[in-house]
């Protein structure tokens, strides 16, 4: 038996976890399940790809930063893509979710997010076709690091990036006035207004964080796997599973949930067979909810 599944699982788990942060924030602060979150991932990835291509067309071929498979254009493009995805989320909220939210029926907003998800995905297919594409076709040599584990430089870089981003969001949530306002809003929206919190601005911050992290998760998938219009939609169930597993509203919970599901999936592929991949993570999800319905880091409200 090889421990390679640990690396694979951590990587898949990072992608799921970064996405799940947005899901869990939207759910706890805006109180609805945003099914379009996966499509934010895909849009962010295509936006990043477009910027990479534009930089390539302007500056010619840029050598990758050894030993990584990508150079500065991807890093710049990622930042632009994150901003773009954040704006996309804000725009979608303004034209769609905010109006429906004011009518006070959560299920309508959920359904609207389903519609937005399909529309966004179709637009991507229409524009970029459904054929997979890649940031780089270069093949990286995986380095052996012992215990039968091999890892590529890209994978190490992306794991580090995930760690930094998760830590950053966690500190933002727990140490800053913005984060406290977000917590307050998720616990009691009426009281949040009474203590002087501008709900609209907290909602905007929530979309910006969720959108930007969705873009990073998407680009990770793009670097390590491939870029497809369905790439985000396919992540939707694992992301929701991670958010619920970790406890809705908890940032560390969402990330830990993502890692558990990623590791379980990768372990299942290696130990049982690839066809059990999805089943295993959902069995874990059900088992955890059976024992602890509020999720690992969830807290009973009041």
């Amino acid at each position, binding site marked *: 038996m090889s421990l390679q599944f640990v690396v694979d699982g951590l990587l898949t788990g990072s992608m799921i976890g970064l996405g799940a942060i947005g899901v869990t924030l939207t759910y706890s602060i805006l109180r609805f399940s945003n099914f379009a979150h996966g499509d934010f991932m895909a849009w962010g990835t295509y936006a990043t790809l477009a910027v990479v291509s534009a930089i390539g067309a302007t500056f010619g071929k840029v050598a990758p930063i050894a030993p990584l498979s990508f150079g500065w254009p991807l890093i710049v493009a990622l930042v632009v893509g994150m901003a773009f995805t954040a704006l996309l989320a804000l725009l979608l909220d303004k034209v769609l979710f905010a109006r429906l939210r004011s009518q006070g029926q959560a299920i309508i907003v959920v359904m609207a997010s389903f519609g937005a998800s399909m529309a966004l995905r179709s637009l991507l297919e229409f524009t970029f076709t459904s054929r997979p594409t890649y940031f780089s076709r270069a093949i990286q040599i995986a380095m052996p690091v012992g215990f039968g584990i091999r890892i590529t430089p890209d994978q190490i870089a992306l794991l580090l990036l995930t760690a930094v981003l998760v830590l950053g969001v966690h500190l933002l949530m727990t140490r800053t*006035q913005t984060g*406290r306002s977000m917590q307050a809003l998720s616990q009691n929206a*009426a*009281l949040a207004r*009474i203590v*002087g*919190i501008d709900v609209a601005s907290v909602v905007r911050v929530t979309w910006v964080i969720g959108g930007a992290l969705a873009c990073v998760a998407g680009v990770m998938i793009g670097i390590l796997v491939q870029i497809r219009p369905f790439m985000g939609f396919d992540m939707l169930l694992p992301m929701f599973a991670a958010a619920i597993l970790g406890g809705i509203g908890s940032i560390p919970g969402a990330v830990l949930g993502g890692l558990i599901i990623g590791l379980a999936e990768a372990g299942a592929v290696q130990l049982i067979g690839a066809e059990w991949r999805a089943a295993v993570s959902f069995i874990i999800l059900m088992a955890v909810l059976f024992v602890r319905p509020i999720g690992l880091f969830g807290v009973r409200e009041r």
Partner: protein
Amino acid sequence: MSEIVLDVRDLEAGYEPGVPIVRGASITVKKGEIVVVLGPNGAGKSSFIKAIAGLVPITGGSVFLDGKDITAAPAHTMVRLGLAFVPQTENIFPLMSVEDNLKVACGILERREIPARIEEMYAAFPDLVRQRRTAAGNLSGGQRQMLAVARALIVHPKVLVLDEPSAGLSPKFVSTVFEMLAGIRKSGVTILLVEQNAKAALAIGDRAYVLVEGKDRHEGIAAELWNDPVVAELYLGQRPLGAEKTGHAGKGGTA
């Protein structure tokens, strides 16, 4: 007479258009006063005070704070305008620590001022210091009320507005809460409160209004209202408020 801090004129408010709960209520609160709004159940006391705080839509009349028109200002702007509101229930963030409950309310303060201001609140409410890291949801009923009041006071409000601060508290805590409010008034804070517990509220209040069917029907000095037959009639039907004291009690006390 001292200056008027809060001036509510002919206020009309309600959740649905055409169904007013508050129907032309007027009150004034002067600087340094404790003003009590009493009234029978369903008189619209709570809606009245929530409308002032921007939480129930206002359909008519006006609210002035320190001479400034704050009628129907959005609820989240009220602390900046100088009005701090303490709701009747769910007035703390249960999953946040006591300290974070205070910090989250400091949005309008200067960043440098916040730590000292929090220490001031701990000095005023020593019970909270030992619990500063405790999740607020684990506090006792009385401590929750203290935290809610501290959270409101932390922004130096011109007027502190409370919706039934004694609701749901055990009798022991009720007296603690009213002693606390009397102490806060001594420090110069102006207070407006709505209260079911008329006896305890009138004991600490300066003036009081009786609200019936959404209108202010009577006004007077708090200490005198307790034995005022008009109040008894408005508030409890025919039975005098002081009935339990004078011996000819009716069907049990509501106060």
